């Protein structure tokens, strides 16, 4: 398949050139996946299919457009690209639009990132069904008479992609992914039917947790939510669980992109080299994590991947700047988007930290909410557990936290020792002090 993808990408680049493009970049991706869902001890859905898609970016006469299609019939494709080049000529000139300087393609890592599991073809239909059935059974057993409904699901895919640019870049990547999830709804007081889930995604089948770990953890989580209520508005320390902490961290990250900065939509635009958090805040983009879901040797523009410390002990050191915005800002490019976001773990477990915090909220889920990348203001609904002196008091719901990203990271007290191994973000639970938690 590798050569076939290269050939198709090359053909697209030739078609663009023949149609008059000055330069072009083609990405062709192919994947095959299987998804199996179980409910009531029988398959609820089975889906299996393959997809292939092409994206061509066209640079002509200092003008730019991006085209994608799943209609790869040769005649359709030729007309599609010819039309694309013709219409691109009609756009306004944009002198910043070029392919990257090829010097940024250089120095690409050749390390084996272990992002494709060579045993992928050996996974049998029976093994897939057994995996999902076992998730459901273990979840049913742990949930007991509280269970209203359980959906278990397994998904795996094998994907390949080739990226070619007309100024000398070519790259190929092969990935596999394995995913298991249990979703459970349980009986609570009155008409309340809380739901929870546990999901894990990995690049190798070996690394995926056993099905009963997934099922039991989903059930444990929903049982812990029974009897949730809100408390009065209060200023408290909070611990945001590893599984959901990236959702909160996204509010900080979205202000770190070149586009947000150049378009005056970043509250961090003038903060490079300044302290934006306290010493507990270090954030690394690591493309080379073995088996990492975001690992890769190059980014989607072909720039060679590099490990970068973005924030070091509270000091903002780098932004995510792609080629186009690097030219608009007259900065050096870094990467268009992060590979694997890593926050180094601390030394203590969440349980140990709780003991020292007195009264606080352990946040295990978010609901709704927003973060404003221009101002840093954020407000988000929370679900979790009220704790006092290390003991869980009761679950909380219908509550909210509101703060500003320019302020709250200065109140980051500690990172726990539990980075989430089943996510693209290797971020541990994080502890913040003096947060207004709104309720009754």
């Amino acid at each position, binding site marked *: 398949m590798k050569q076939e993808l290269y050939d198709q990408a090359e053909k697209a680049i030739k078609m663009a050139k023949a149609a008059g493009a000055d330069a072009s970049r083609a990405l062709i991706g192919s994947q095959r996946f299987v998804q199996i869902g179980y409910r009531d001890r029988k*398959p609820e859905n089975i889906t299996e299919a393959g997809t292939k898609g092409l994206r061509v970016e066209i640079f002509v006469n200092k*003008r730019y457009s*991006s085209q994608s299609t799943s209609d790869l019939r040769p005649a359709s494709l030729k007309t*599609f690209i010819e039309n694309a080049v013709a219409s*691109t000529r009609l756009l*306004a000139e944009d002198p910043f639009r070029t392919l990257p300087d090829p010097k940024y393609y250089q120095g690409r890592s050749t390390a084996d990132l272990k992002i494709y599991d060579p045993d992928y073809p050996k996974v049998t239909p029976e093994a897939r069904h057994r995996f999902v059935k076992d998730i459901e059974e273990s979840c049913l057993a742990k949930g007991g008479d509280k269970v209203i409904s359980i959906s278990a699901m397994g998904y795996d895919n094998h994907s390949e992609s080739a990226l070619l640019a007309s100024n000398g870049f070519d790259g190929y990547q092969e990935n596999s992914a394995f995913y298991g999830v249990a979703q459970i709804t349980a009986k609570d007081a009155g008409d309340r039917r809380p739901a929870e889930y546990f999901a894990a995604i990995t690049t190798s089948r070996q690394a995926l947790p056993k099905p009963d770990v997934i099922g039991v953890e989903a059930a444990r989580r929903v049982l812990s939510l029974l009897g949730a209520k809100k408390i009065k508005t209060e200023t408290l320390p909070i611990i945001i669980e590893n599984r959901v902490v990236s959702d909160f961290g996204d509010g900080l990250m979205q202000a770190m992109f070149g586009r947000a900065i150049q378009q005056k939509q970043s509250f961090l635009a003038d903060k490079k080299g300044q302290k934006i958090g306290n010493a507990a805040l270090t954030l690394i983009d690591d493309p080379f994590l073995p088996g990492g879901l975001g690992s890769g040797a190059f980014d989607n523009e072909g720039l060679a991947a590099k490990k970068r410390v973005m924030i070091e002990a509270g000091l903002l050191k780098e932004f995510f700047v792609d080629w186009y915005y690097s030219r608009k800002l007259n900065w050096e490019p870094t990467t268009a988007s992060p590979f694997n976001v890593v926050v180094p773990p601390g030394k203590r477990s969440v349980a140990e930290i709780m003991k020292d915090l007195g009264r606080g909220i352990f946040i295990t889920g978010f*609901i709704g909410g927003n973060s404003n990348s*221009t101002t840093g203001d954020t407000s988000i609904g929370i679900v979790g557990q009220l704790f006092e002196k290390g003991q869980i008091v009761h679950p909380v*719901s219908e509550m909210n936290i509101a703060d500003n990203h320019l302020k709250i990271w200065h109140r980051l007290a500690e990172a726990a020792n539990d980075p989430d191994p089943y996510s693209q973000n290797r971020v541990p639970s994080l502890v913040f002090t003096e947060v*207004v938690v709104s309720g009754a």
Partner: protein
Amino acid sequence: MNKITRRSFLQTGASAATATLVAPVLVGRGWYAFAQAEAAGYFEREFGITDALCRKVLAEALAKGGDFADLFFEHTISNNLGLEDGKVNRAACDVALGVGIRTVKGDQVGYGFTQELTEKAMLAAAATAATIADAAAKKPAGAFVPLKTKNFYPMKTLFSSVPLDTKLPLVQSVNDKCFALSSLVAKVNVVFHDQQKRILVVSSDGVKAEDLQPRSYLGATVVAEKNGRRERAGWNFGGRRDFSYFMPSLVDKLTKTAVDRTVLLFDAIQPPAGEMPVVLGPGLTGVLLHEAIGHGMEADFNRKKISTYCTMLGKKVAEPFVTIIDDGTIPNLTGSINFDDEGTPGQRTVLVDKGILTGYLHDKISAKFYGVPPTGNGRRQSYQNYVIPRMRNTYMTAGPAAPEDVIKAAGKGIYVEDVANGQVKIGEGDFAFYVSQGRLIENGKLGAPIKDVNIMGNGPKMLANITMVASDFTLYEGGAGACGKGGQSAPCSFGQPSCLVKSLTVGGIKG
């Protein structure tokens, strides 16, 4: 994938313009330019999809039995034109072509899809779908009867027949007018999106339905600067519209709304946190109905008993002046459909009739379970997804009160004008919304503007706590709104009159 259980409403109105996409490809001489605006016969004409071929593929999908099987052909062309830093300098086009094949047995679904519309590829996908069943083969209907429906979104001109150099000045004019409206404007992003989605549904029970669904919007995001502070807001207009909708008067309305909303934020404060009366203003706040109530009334959640509303059918859930509808038949609105993705005609479905919960939103599977006719809510993102019950345009009808009386009755609280990023927990009914724009209510009158707060509540409780409904019913005319469920996005809209909710939790910053 890790957000699979989240059902969030993606209010992309403003942020759409910040997407990386942009511009169109198919100029007037494009290869679809001369295709007819009529829906019927397109797939046979362009791709050789005959009734005989469909029957063969459906027979393969039912080779191991099953209740029924269906085919969903799709050919969608989407274009985006983008303006940044004063120039329309980016374009993007996407073409999606494929067929999804589904075999249904009870509540079990087998699904396969292919991007190649060849007999060989379709038979292989059908064989995958068939594996859900394990009985004797069934035969599809001997003849397919073309479905005839009203057309709620006729196109005078296909987007592919509108030359690019006609679209460019439209996009440019949004930028120029925004800058002319206020000296505080620092950056403007504009996006123009147009889409032509052609679908053909062929079902083993004899239904054949073919449609052309347009969707388009023009959106502006504005960043303004004042005394070293920056604020950002935006707006969009659109729907199932053709190009004739985007007149200079609409550009005036769009740019004024976007700039006014941005500049107002310099005066906005965050309100105190806690429980208080909340007035939901007319129009866009109908997102709240969609999240807090609509999702809980999708029949799949009730069939599985995971919705908080699953025991409330026939019961009083609100005051008698509250009536809530989900409607696929409003001309040109984003969520309207001539028929759904299973070939059931679009219709008006009453969810709450004068305070009584009267029905759920059904696809074929849930309708069979409940022994009722399907309501035309079986929808999917694309040929790559199987159908699930989804909302269309969800709204509350007008009530008896004067809008100013609703604000007066609130006394002290907040008035919500614009909400986004809503999310609901179906089982508890708990929801959260981000209020991007609103006002304080003090002494029964509108006060200072507010921003960046969340409101939290519980769907059934909020419904029961609607104590006044005003006469100012308004439908939201944005085109960028999409609802997310089960990893699938579907365009929809909503509306409502002003109404008073006795108490909701407001997540402000002061303790």
